């Protein structure tokens, strides 16, 4: 009697995974070997148990879990856009919110156009510098400018050259330190 195949080969034979020439050899051996037939019978019994447990013990709990998941996740429904969401407010609350927004806007507009917020702020920097911030009403600025005799923000002095002096340009205007223009001595 030839030697019996090991359990792995028998398991592969049971699952019909051994190619034909070798499968036929195993089949011929199993037909004549009581011990191998008993092993095949054990494999068949194990498969039967697993099939029976799978159909009776696992299917029902898995189905319950699947239903719970589907109940919490809507299928085929997308969340609405932020711009399309609607918020329900009680009418008094909505009215109060509108009044607050309107008051805030009016206050900002008044502050932006208000001109009589005059102040002078002198700020001394830690390094020793001094910063002057001026903000005066428009009418006071006008008074200041008038006191300085200028229509704009500059001080203007007028000198009148005698008519007897005839001036003619002799070149381009020039400016520089006095030592850059030495006096011509005879």
């Amino acid at each position, binding site marked *: 009697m030839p030697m019996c195949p090991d359990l792995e080969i028998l398991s592969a034979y049971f699952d019909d995974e051994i190619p034909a020439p070798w499968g036929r050899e195993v089949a011929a051996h199993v037909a004549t070997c009581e011990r191998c037939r008993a092993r095949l019978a054990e494999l068949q019994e194990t498969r039967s148990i697993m099939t029976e447990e799978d159909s009776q013990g696992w299917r029902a709990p898995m189905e319950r879990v699947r239903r719970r998941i589907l109940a919490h996740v809507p299928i085929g429904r997308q969340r609405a856009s932020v711009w399309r969401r609607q918020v329900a407010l009680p009418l008094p609350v909505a009215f109060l919110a509108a009044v607050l927004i309107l008051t805030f806007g009016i206050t900002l507009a008044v502050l932006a156009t208000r001109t009589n917020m005059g102040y002078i702020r002198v700020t001394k920097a830690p390094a020793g510098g001094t910063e002057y911030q001026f903000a005066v009403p428009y009418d006071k600025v006008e008074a*200041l400018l008038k006191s300085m005799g200028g229509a704009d923000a*500059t001080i203007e002095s*007028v000198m*009148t*050259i005698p*008519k007897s002096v005839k*001036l*003619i340009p002799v*070149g381009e205007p*020039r400016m520089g330190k006095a030592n850059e223009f030495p006096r011509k001595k005879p």
Partner: protein
Amino acid sequence: MPRVRGGIVPLLLALAVVHTNAQAQAPGSDTDPKEALQELLSKALTVTVSARVLPPDAQEETPVWNAESTKLTLPGRSIKVRLDGENVRIYLICTPYLQDNGEVLLVAQGQVWFTEPQDKENRYFSTFYSIPVSFGEKVLFFPLGLSDADAQQKNHFNIELEIKIVPYEKKQ
């Protein structure tokens, strides 16, 4: 000699008055008006502009006409001097800035409007200068150019403006 005097003291007093009013409007501000005025005065500058018309003769340094304008201003605030002649108008706009090293950066703009006597054609010059100077250092401006010997032979008058900046000193 005409002498034009201008004062910044009214300006400073007016600013102090505005500041006093501002104290009532800005309760968070704790600056004393007198201190603010002293701060302004300590930064004030005296700008003297002297205009001279020199004769054609180079050997003669006595001006045929001169005028002087002294203005008090604050750093960054410009002063404007205007010279009106028969056929010329000259603007000199000076803005002094205090630098970190204690010197003054003089930013000056010169504008010259000139009418030719013969053809009545108007000419315009505009120039801009930025000159670092020390206190008391003289800066010269020749709005109609700097004449040479040829121009002097043509009996042309020369006009020059002298600018001098010194710190403001309160008179006792």
